[in-house]
């Protein structure tokens, strides 16, 4: 009896150690996550609801919101189509150079956001490779909306692909092969067999991709030119307001982005829960 108790105790920490670890972990999370998140909303509402609403109704704030939505509306579907195509090729077929391809897809994550913007300036900027040609044809990519969209696509490039590739690899290709041998066409197989199997992984990737697309700062900042009402996304607008010491307005716009982050976290948790329930384990990536 005595030895039994001793054994049970020795595979668990003592109560005091357990409590200490929980307190340390929670303090760390409260200090670095909880307080900042709370502070965004407190700062935004520090001068009352009226000023908060007024800040959000500014025309410049509105055009920033619209540009952010537009950017995400282009970048996310583009990377979604790419992610599905890449995952289909990589997970359903065997070919040479596959692991190199997977590495290359992850490349944008290894690059600083600032550098992600810089590469497009080098290509399309006034002194860039295609700069003179673009100028001769009166096309503006850098310091204009197309540059912002391109830079956003670059930084969110791997999100959906890296979610789908391991998921589809784990699922194998027997189901698709069965469908094809029963006479289904390629598209039928994809829509009726593959897509239902990967829907949660797909949604998971889309949510994370969207959050980054709407929140990207560094890359977009380099290519935007910061023209108020024209090429300012929400994060860039936050910067401008903050640097003008217009803190209420800065935090008002920031609070919208913080809300987006909270919605992202909630939907993400729901998707994880649903995926677990339907037996489609998700690949947990950064």
């Amino acid at each position, binding site marked *: 009896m005595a030895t039994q108790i001793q054994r049970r105790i020795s595979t668990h920490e003592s109560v005091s150690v357990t409590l200490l670890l929980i307190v340390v972990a929670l303090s760390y999370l409260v200090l670095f996550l909880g307080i900042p998140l709370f502070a965004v909303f407190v700062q935004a509402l520090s001068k009352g609801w009226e000023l908060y609403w007024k800040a959000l109704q500014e025309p410049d704030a509105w055009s920033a919101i619209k540009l952010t939505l537009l950017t995400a509306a282009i970048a996310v579907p583009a990377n979604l*189509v790419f992610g599905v195509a890449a995952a289909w090729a990589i997970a359903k077929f065997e070919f040479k150079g596959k692991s190199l391809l997977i590495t290359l897809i992850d490349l944008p994550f290894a690059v600083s956001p600032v550098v992600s913007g810089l590469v497009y300036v080098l290509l399309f900027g006034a002194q860039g490779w295609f700069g003179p040609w673009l100028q001769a044809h009166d096309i503006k990519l850098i310091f204009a909306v197309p540059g912002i969209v391109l830079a956003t696509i670059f930084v969110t490039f791997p999100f959906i692909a890296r979610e789908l590739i391991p998921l589809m690899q784990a699922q194998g*290709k027997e189901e698709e092969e069965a469908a094809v041998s029963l006479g289904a066409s390629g598209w039928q197989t994809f829509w009726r067999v593959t897509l239902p199997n990967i829907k949660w992984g797909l949604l998971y990737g889309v949510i994370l991709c969207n959050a980054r697309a709407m929140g990207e700062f560094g890359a977009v900042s380099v290519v935007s030119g910061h023209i108020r009402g024209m090429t300012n996304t929400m994060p860039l607008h936050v910067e401008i307001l903050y640097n003008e010491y217009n803190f209420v307005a800065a935090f008002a716009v920031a609070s919208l982005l913080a809300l987006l982050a909270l919605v992202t976290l909630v939907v993400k*948790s729901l998707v994880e829960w649903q995926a677990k329930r339907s037996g489609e384990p998700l690949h947990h990536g950064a």
Partner: protein
Amino acid sequence: MSQFRAHSVLPGFNLALGFTLLYLSLIVLIPLSALFVKSATLGLGGFWHVVTGDRVLASLRVTFFTSFVAAVINAFFGLIVAWVLVRYTFPGKRIVDALVDLPFALPTAVAGITLATLYAPNGWLGQYFTAHDIKVAYTPLGIVVALTFIGLPFVVRTVQPVLADVEAEVEEAAASLGAGRWDVFQRVIFPAIYPALLTGFALAFARAIGEYGSVIFIAGNMPYISEIAPLLIVAKLEQYDYAGATTIAVAMLLLSFALLLAINILQWWSSRRGTR
């Protein structure tokens, strides 16, 4: 074609791979190659001249040092958080677990202005540091705070699944052979999660090196003291010094690749030792 890929009854390979390669080339590979071509026009001498400039060297030092410190902080506390989330139950645990991903979801500019406001000398948290004569915002310490925020989820998320997979039987066996709890952790559990911990550390480190948005608001951006390399790239770009900006970018990329390579080798070496 038959040599290049194994036979399959499934259709769509050419279309899917063709599109993948085209999109990858247009969006990522060609733009990134522009970076290296541009820096090559400077020649090795020119490259060296820019990289060894005092201000550039100082910014690289600040970037890598603060990133390292933040990654170490995250490795230590991230391990504790992962441990607590896997092993213990407490009220609100699921919310806490979901909240860990906040730095992935919260735009960096929002994190930046919020942390700068909190840690300003008269801010909610800054005032306590001011009372002890410590300045956080507008110093390298502020950069560490921002980078700790940005890198927080990496270690937790890489260690969590591995820690959950550690078999209870092994721990029980060790305990029944007389090992104390700390011994079990040190000799049984830690070796199992060490590679994941290292991966999380490397990811947090790499992310911190490139980080821009959350840092610039809290850093104060004083040349030689609290100016990070990505900011110097932006500054050079604003002066239309494309070559200078590109050179710093390439130097940063090379340094981070060398670092990741070193960590990979360390990991490979430790996992080989572990299996013996």
